[in-house]
């Protein structure tokens, strides 16, 4: 994974528009958050291989970044994205890592299931 190049990611978002895509969308505090610090809530959420189609999408901010995808009845939103896989030419693989390298958020789009 490499630091996000905003312009390049925007090109991929534009390319994947207006078609059925598999989505992986995730945010996590890790499974041990409250075990390690009982003032914290252990919370995580993900949708894996849901299907979406968006008509408009962009990556905003100056790093960490936010992505919004306008879908028929609503939105897909992710904030805190820092890295992407620039070598993947078929899919969009975005992640947000904290300063220990741990994954916090993830947004992935593909024409095939993950």
């Amino acid at each position: 994974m490499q630091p996000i190049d905003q312009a390049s990611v925007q090109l991929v978002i534009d390319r994947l528009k207006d078609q059925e895509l598999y989505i992986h969308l995730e945010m996590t505090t890790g499974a041990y958050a409250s075990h390690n610090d009982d003032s914290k809530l252990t919370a995580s959420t993900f949708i894996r291989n849901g299907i979406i189609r968006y008509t408009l999408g962009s990556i905003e901010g100056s790093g960490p970044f936010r992505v919004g995808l306008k879908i028929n009845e609503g939105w897909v939103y992710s904030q805190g994205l820092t890295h992407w896989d620039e070598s993947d030419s078929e899919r969009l693989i975005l992640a947000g890592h904290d300063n220990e390298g741990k994954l916090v958020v993830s947004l992935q789009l593909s024409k095939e299931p993950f």
Partner: protein
Amino acid sequence: MERQILVVLPHPDDECFGLSGTLAKRISEGTQVTYACLTLGEMARNMGNPVFANRVTLPQIRKLELMESCKSIGITDVRMMGYHDKTIEFEDHEAMSKRLGELITELNPSLVITFHPLYSVHPDHDATGAAVIRTLAKMPKEQRPTLHCMAFTKDCEQMLGLPDVKVDVTAFLKHKIGSIQAHRSQWQLPVDSNMVESDAMKERFGTERFWTYSFE
């Protein structure tokens, strides 16, 4: 000598801190060990430090790490059961019991090791323990193997009492450290070969603890 141990755990690396020394010891004594790992830990948020994995590459990386850990311990029979990280508690109970039951029929273990269903922190750990107990509970008492559980919530000793099974694994620290270090996407343990047998390492890693589960 323990004849045959079936280990059932949800994630690659679940064996390394609490069980790897015991398994290495038993293997050295001639015990057959089978490790059924339910998932590939796909949803872990640790990607190595420095980062070398991503959400897409992580499962295959953790699969290789699991094999390396097992090599360090001496386990040659590993079954990857194909479930998905974080979803064990949502899977159909009957279907899972059937698969675990098939393993038990095939291997006829004298001992099964898993997590305690209430005191193991991660929902997958608890759910795995619960699934193993559901499967074993269906067996006639005379055929049922002994069940040892790992537990580590802050209140586990308060709730369960002290663990009744304590295994001295100080002679197998090298196997255990090798197992921990194999899971490098998840753990970074900087230990070199002359630190392995140190007092600090023996103190920290030299004893593994289990609770015998009672079906009464």
